[in-house]
């Protein structure tokens, strides 16, 4: 089976104040279908830039990006860092937004959005507006929106970084369970090592300026990951070192 995502010598430079910032690259990376990849790195290392390139929100200056099966509407789900919900829409309509954008009927969009909200544990909050929800609930809505169209590729940009540790862990667990029920290839960007080790099948560590992948490791641990196990601690230590 071919790769779901392929990056070949991808580079990105930003011009600012007359100078040039070599933000990314060259990055060559291949992600298998169904893989859960965590892009781990410090702030400003270009991991978000990489994710944006994958989503088509930014274009590389050189190199190639191949996402199979082909670029089609709704095939990519994207979860933003925070505050990306539409404040004038209810939770339900926020989740239904991608489906409506794809031209699905209002009825179908709402039915599927309802199911998606149920999956993230927000049944009963369909009619709430974002300002009526807590930060954790808002990110659940954002997750539901990212997954509602049943995407082939799910991209997440530090979706839990603004939450408190406990909420963040709860949502990490939920995300693991949700993703295991999908066939989607996942790329999860984070600067939090523990989060990466807990979630990822594979971890790519990115280095700074220009952002390149300096370590690429597929984790052996399968199934439910126990944060207190020695294997987990061992892994954590190896990435923190």
């Amino acid at each position, binding site marked *: 089976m071919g790769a779901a995502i392929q990056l070949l010598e991808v580079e990105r430079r930003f011009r600012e104040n007359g100078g040039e910032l070599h933000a990314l690259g060259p990055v060559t990376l291949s992600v298998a279908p169904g893989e859960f990849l965590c892009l781990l790195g410090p702030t400003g290392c270009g991991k978000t830039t990489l994710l944006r390139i994958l989503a088509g*929100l930014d274009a590389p200056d050189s190199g190639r990006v191949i996402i199979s099966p082909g670029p089609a*509407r*709704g095939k990519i789900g994207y979860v*933003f860092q925070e*505050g*990306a919900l539409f*404040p*004038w829409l209810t939770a339900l309509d926020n989740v239904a937004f991608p489906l*409506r954008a794809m031209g699905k009927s209002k009825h179908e969009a709402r039915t599927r959005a309802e199911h998606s909200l149920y999956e993230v544990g927000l049944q009963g909050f369909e009619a709430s*507006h974002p300002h009526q929800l807590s930060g954790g609930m808002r990110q659940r809505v954002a997750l539901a929106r990212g997954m509602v169209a049943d995407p082939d590729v799910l991209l997440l940009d530090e979706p839990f970084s603004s939450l408190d540790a406990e909420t963040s862990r709860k949502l990490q667990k939920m995300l693991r369970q949700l993703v295991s029920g999908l066939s989607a290839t996942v790329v999860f960007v984070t600067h939090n090592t523990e989060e990466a080790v807990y979630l990822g099948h594979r971890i790519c560590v990115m280095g700074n300026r220009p952002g390149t992948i300096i370590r690429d490791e597929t984790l052996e641990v399968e199934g439910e990951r126990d944060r207190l196990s020695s294997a987990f601690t061992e892994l954590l230590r190896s990435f923190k070192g």
Partner: protein
Amino acid sequence: MSNPKGFEPVQRRRERKRDSGVFSLEGLVLPAGLLLFWFLSTRSGAATVLPPPEKVFSVLLAPGADIASSGSLLWNIYVSLVRVLLGLLAGIAIGTPIGFLMGSSVFSRRALYLVTELARPLSPLALLPLSIIIFRDTTLTKVLGLTYLRYSRHIFNEVQLGMIFVLFWGAVFPVILDTMHGVRGIRNTHYEVARVSGAGKWFTFTHLMIPASLPDMLAGYRMAMGRTWMVIIAAEMLPGTNSGIGYLLRYSYTITRYDVMLACILIIAMVGAVFSKGLADMGEARLTLRARER
């Protein structure tokens, strides 16, 4: 929730006090005092320019009666309101798309901003004589070709294009600028959400740009409404028409019917208040939604 009387939580009592709005018992003290002063001063025998309040109220209480063959109060209010409405609608219809254009395209903003900023401070009233020269006595009756109405008392005869143009001038700039600000204020992330969702241009326009800028748009409409009401009163006091509440105000001054004049002032104030209150309520809900998010 049921609380025994007198045990309302302090927090909520405070909130209620804060939310009491424009109308309150305390707010009525000053107007009532002024009214009393007015009443007593006209009674005291001292020479006063003001007619007694009861005379003014008797004018207000017979709004359908003809005043010095200039039509009734109601008729003149109606004429002014129709003019304002048409000028406002013209301003909204033309200003909103321009605002959207200037908000969403750097080219249009560059091309139009200078003109808008130069034209905006120009008082609409300054344009009235020019407007009358350009449009002459063209009325809605003429435009619509309804010549058989010409000698009847019909509202179309009272809607002079020159007047509407001046009102349009007063309305269009707040609409343009606020719409532009609303559109420019749309978060980049929201555009990106639309993009990764696969939204097309039209969908992005109808489901993101319009709802996101609506609070500012409404604020602009509200401002425009207030301004057109100010402009129409002044415009009607100038040559070019002999109808409308502003005309009646000025005419009653000329013929020294000060009771009518004061009645007109009261009506103008009330209509203005209703305008701003009504639109404020309309915009409130969405404005707070957005404010809370930021």
